[in-house]
């Protein structure tokens, strides 16, 4: 019993740290003026989210989050920011404009809507959660679901990734050709 309660306190402690790191780095992404710092804060946000996924026994998704997001996607972001050069922009300076006030109001309204909808529709189910086995969220279970129940989603995902790769190549190549059309002086 004592071991169980110590484990419970430990899980709570990890949850509190990860959740506040998540929310704080999310706010940092939105409010940093330099996009480079925003991208670094987003990496922290993704790492904290991976901890939350682990607490929800989604081991494979947590690993994919760290590898795909914090690894590949964010490295691409940092490369593009380094290529373009940081254009600083201070979102909170110069007094509140009507656009900023409207944005804060709209985001707050969206937040309230989400909380109300989840509270109305799902509060009956949230009191107790199902017991899950050790295999829940493991790579074997994810692979079995992907190749049996969700095969169509798997194939469509591969097509989406292929189309995005082709689109990226076309976007990059087109602008290079357009730059080549400028006659050299």
């Amino acid at each position, binding site marked *: 019993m004592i071991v169980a309660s110590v484990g*419970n306190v430990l*899980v*709570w402690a990890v*949850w509190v740290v990860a*959740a506040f790191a*998540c*929310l704080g780095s*999310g*706010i940092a*992404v*939105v409010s940093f003026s330099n*996009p480079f710092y*925003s*991208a670094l804060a987003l990496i922290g*946000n*993704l790492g904290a989210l991976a901890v939350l*996924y682990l607490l*929800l026994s*989604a081991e494979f*998704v947590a690993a*994919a*989050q760290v590898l*795909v*997001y914090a690894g590949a996607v964010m490295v*691409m*972001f940092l490369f593009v920011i380094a*290529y*373009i050069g940081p254009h600083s*922009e201070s*979102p909170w300076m110069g007094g509140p404009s009507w656009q*900023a006030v*409207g*944005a*804060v109001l709209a*985001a707050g309204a*969206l*937040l309230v809507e*989400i*909380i109300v909808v989840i509270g109305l529709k799902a509060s009956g189910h*949230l009191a107790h*959660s*199902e017991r*899950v086995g050790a295999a*829940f*969220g493991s790579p074997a279970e*994810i692979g079995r679901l*992907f190749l049996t*129940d*969700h095969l169509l*989603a798997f194939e469509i*995902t591969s097509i*989406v*990734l292929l*189309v995005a790769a082709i*689109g*990226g190549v076309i*976007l*990059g190549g087109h*602008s290079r050709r357009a*730059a080549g059309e400028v006659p050299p002086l």
Partner: protein
Amino acid sequence: MSGPGVAWYLSVAAFLFGTGSLGVLLRRNPLIVLLSLEIMLNGANLALIGFARNFGDGSGQIFALAVMAVAASEVVVGLGLIVALNRKRVTLDVDRLNTLRG
């Protein structure tokens, strides 16, 4: 399930989504708009995984992985557009990018 219930995770997800939408609405730099979009997608992912744990059904995790793939595609296309705009020496400000003419 020891530790906090799923409702706590869902509230974190809601706050993440709200923060991301604030960034999308407030910021003018398209790079930071893309980063804020990632926060919104991650909030939705956290909600999906929380519900998957709550119902003991792995389909929510499959959905979250599909969302991750779509997010990676979105980043590829979005960053490609930003680089293309930068090569055309267009100011990177979403308030000024209001025409589709090349």
